[in-house]
């Protein structure tokens, strides 16, 4: 496996423009002849499919939901970053770039991150023109809020539904192209494998989720925009359907998987309330603008929060990180919460919770102001917990939320399989070992609107692609393989449900490959995951048939892939003998308990090559070269 990041030469701030000036172009007449498959209709896929359609390509877009508008991006609450500097508070492309690189604990690729910052402003322009109702100030100009890890206010938002509004914007652009005849959307259609012909990605095999039929689709290039893999933990803030299957199937066909151990456990989620729990609900990080995080000073304090006097509360984020306080980055806030609970100072049933308290801000600003800022989040909290957060502090606890790792891509967003591009959360490129709030929406839209439409042209103009159709041997063979796998899952007819295995895997992963990790724990986890995977293939039960609407079958295929991914995550975490961002190895910490990086040995991306489900994968390395940023111990004190 050869890793060439193809980073353009020249000064950091000029790389992207220089490249754009020299990219090969596809003529309008030829664009009409080129077909592109876009898997996923979230921000990344929706934006890409719409923009490619506008350019005149023939696009087929796929999603597993019943409508493109329901991709998981819809659930993003807090906001989207851009270096507009509308607040005149000193923001710039460079500062957004720097914050993102630092936030990622210096484990991302400088050139990609700079490009992200550079196009961020154009995203906001595009979205406003589409009719996205971002919040505004009384003069009618755009408003901003602050998010973790930044000292400027650069986050644009639409109430607590920023992701919804952005996605509906991308979806409307997609619809305009459907009307124009350039894009065909295939909802309720799941990609189950990638078709590789002569070493290039040339198509996908899908399952129609209504009648179960398998179909092969061929194209000149394939874009995976299939989101993240936090559902490997079973309980996460992701939508129930989120999964790694598309990325994992591509990995099995030769796409390198980068930094799988970099996952984000988000600090502000509603704590688990019982065994039956099916998912965890995020309480947007934006709440930390006005909420104060605390636990009782002493363990075992059973008093109601209101009865605990100020002097007996520990506002631990404000105490430990005075410069950023409650807006300390996610990895740091999550670990601090875990530590407080490990010390026995947690609150609520099960004692895995900390308070997020609005009393002070309600006193200062009034309940009405807090209601306009966060009304829907407060309502959601009350619906779920039955408690009124205007009166008693919220209880929160960290939950798996985002995956920084993903398929490896070069600067052009192309994976190690030529013709396979990966966009959005599914790739690994921009967030290093920890993602800052409000930067995933930015990245998805940057990739989809402003990067892939350019870099894909270069590939198509430069590649000699033979005509292929679905009768090609590779298509038939891939369909057969998918068929066999489905049949195999249905044939086990064991005694345990898919969910029961998934829950068990999730608990194991959370314990061993979650907020803190050790060599022993990871080694043991790898063995346990293998055993559990074997048990799965011998004892799972999948009711019904393949040729029908069968939600258990859908889950069964995804969980099978989660097992293989889980093992790779542990292996990657074991191999990375340092702590960085969300990857915290207990063996490597400073005296104050902060992540201790090892830049001499681990300033690289680890890219895994698949060798077979029962074989040890091969690790490759892309060194990270920092030309502009000085590597420093990350401090938010």
């Amino acid at each position, binding site marked *: 496996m050869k890793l060439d990041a193809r980073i353009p030469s020249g000064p950091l701030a000029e790389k992207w423009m220089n490249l754009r000036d020299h990219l090969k172009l596809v003529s309008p007449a030829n664009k009409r002849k080129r077909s592109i498959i876009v898997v996923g209709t979230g921000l990344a896929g929706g934006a890409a499919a*719409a923009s490619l359609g*506008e350019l005149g390509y023939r696009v087929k877009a796929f999603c597993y*939901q*019943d*409508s*493109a*508008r*329901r991709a*998981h991006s819809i*659930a993003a609450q807090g906001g989207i970053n851009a270096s*507009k500097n509308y607040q005149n508070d000193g923001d710039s492309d460079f500062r957004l770039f720097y914050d993102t690189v630092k936030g990622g604990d210096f484990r991302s690729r400088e050139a990609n991150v700079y490009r992200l910052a550079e196009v961020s*402003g*154009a995203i906001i*322009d*595009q979205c*406003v*023109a*589409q*009719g996205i*109702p*971002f919040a*505004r*100030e009384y003069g*009618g100009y*755009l408003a901003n809020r602050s998010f973790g890890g930044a000292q400027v206010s650069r986050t644009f938002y*639409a*109430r607590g539904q920023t*992701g*919804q*509004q952005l996605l*509906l914007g991308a979806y*409307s*652009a997609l*619809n*305009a192209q459907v*009307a124009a005849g350039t894009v065909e959307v295939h909802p309720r259609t799941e990609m189950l494998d990638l078709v590789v012909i002569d070493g290039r990605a040339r198509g996908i095999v899908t399952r129609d989720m209504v009648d179960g039929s398998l179909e092969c689709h061929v194209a000149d290039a394939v874009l995976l925009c299939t989101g993240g893999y936090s559902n490997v933990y079973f309980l996460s803030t992701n*939508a*129930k*359907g989120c999964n790694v299957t598309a990325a994992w199937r591509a990995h099995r066909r030769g796409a390198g998987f980068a930094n799988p151990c970099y996952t984000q456990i988000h600090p502000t989620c509603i704590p688990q309330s*019982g065994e*039956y*729990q*099916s998912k965890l*609900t*995020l309480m947007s990080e934006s709440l930390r603008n006005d909420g104060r995080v605390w636990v009782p000073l002493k363990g075992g304090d059973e008093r109601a929060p209101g009865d605990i006097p100020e002097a007996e509360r520990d506002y631990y984020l404000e105490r430990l990180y005075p410069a950023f306080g409650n807006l300390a980055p996610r990895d740091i806030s999550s670990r601090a919460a875990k530590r407080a609970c490990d010390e026995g100072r947690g609150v609520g049933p099960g004692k895995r919770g900390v308070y997020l308290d609005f009393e002070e801000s309600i006193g200062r600003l009034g309940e009405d102001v807090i209601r306009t800022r966060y009304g829907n989040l407060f*309502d*959601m909290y009350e*619906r*779920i917990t*039955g408690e009124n957060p205007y009166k008693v502090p919220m209880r929160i606890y960290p939950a798996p939320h985002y995956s920084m790792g993903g398929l490896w891509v070069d600067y052009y967003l192309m994976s190690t399989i030529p013709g396979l591009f990966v966009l959005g959360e599914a790739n690994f490129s921009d967030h290093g070992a920890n993602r800052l709030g409000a930067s995933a929406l930015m990245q998805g839209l940057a990739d989809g*609107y402003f990067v892939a439409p350019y870099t894909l042209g270069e590939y198509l103009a430069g590649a000699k692609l033979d005509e292929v159709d679905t009768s090609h041997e590779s298509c038939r063979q891939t369909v057969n393989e998918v068929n066999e796998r489905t049949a195999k899952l249905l044939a086990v007819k064991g005694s345990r*449900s898919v*969910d*029961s295995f998934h829950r068990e895997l999730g608990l194991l992963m959370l314990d061993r490959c979650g907020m803190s990790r050790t060599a022993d724990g990871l080694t043991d986890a790898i063995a346990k995951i293998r055993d559990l995977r074997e048990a799965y293939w011998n004892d799972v039960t999948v*009711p*019904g048939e393949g040729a*029908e*609407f069968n*939600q*258990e079958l859908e889950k069964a295929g995804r969980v099978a892939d989660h097992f293989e991914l889980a093992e790779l995550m542990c292996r990657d975490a074991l191999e990375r003998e340092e702590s960085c961002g969300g990857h915290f190895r207990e063996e490597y910490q400073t005296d104050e308990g902060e992540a201790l990086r090892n830049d001499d040995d681990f300033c690289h991306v680890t890219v895994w090559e698949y060798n077979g489900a029962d074989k040890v994968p091969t690790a490759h390395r892309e060194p990270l070269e920092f030309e502009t940023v000085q590597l420093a111990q990350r401090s938010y004190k």
Partner: protein
Amino acid sequence: MRLTLHVWRQSNARDKGGFKTYELEDVNTHMSFLEMLDVLNQDLIGRGEDPVAFDHDCREGICGSCGFVINGVAHGDQPGSTVCQLHMRHFSDGDEVTIEPWRAKAFPVVRDLVVDRSAFDRILTAGGFITVRTGSAPDANAIPIATETLEHAMDFAECIGCGACVASCPNSAAMLFVGAKIAHLGILPQGQSERHQRALAMVEAMENEAFGACTNFRACEAVCPKEISIAGIARMNKDYRKALFSGVGFSSGKKRKR
């Protein structure tokens, strides 16, 4: 708590379907309604029966995937909420709960509680957008928008496309949904150039689907999880009439296939 569930079971679009009754013991009051169905499904799988199919994804009330009728009310009777946000603390021990899919000609049943809402996508494809090529937008602050205007548009933009409005309308009308999009885009300055064409094209597309007409029952507004106001319907009618009388713009031209 103990519940008796009467659940609509239908194995595919051609099947006639019917209710089946299930007893569920030990329902925890903190569970969400969908988690209660998860528990039922785990039971059914354990007994070798087919689990109940229902659409869901975010389980946070925003993706619009979930939705069915609980004891005669779309999304259940907690106002301003989707099924996934409804918790079992709103039920009592011994309750009988009837669960059935959206009933509307335009939304054929796919399986059990799952219906086909693609008619909504087709309506939005006819004109539910502002045409703006990627990269051609002016600076986002070029046009100031008064906060009241903005908030007004946002009230309509919140629609999640769940279909409860159609399901609860005695005529199965889609007006609340269509009105919401027309109002959202039509209130904003960016949406003015296509405002009347948009109304024309979307109303035409709606009429090509199997939705009924609006006779002002306002049942839609009462169940809408996002509390979308029927004022959107008035805006839609106004923009549509204006488009007809002034003869503006295009009609979508195509009668779309169903």
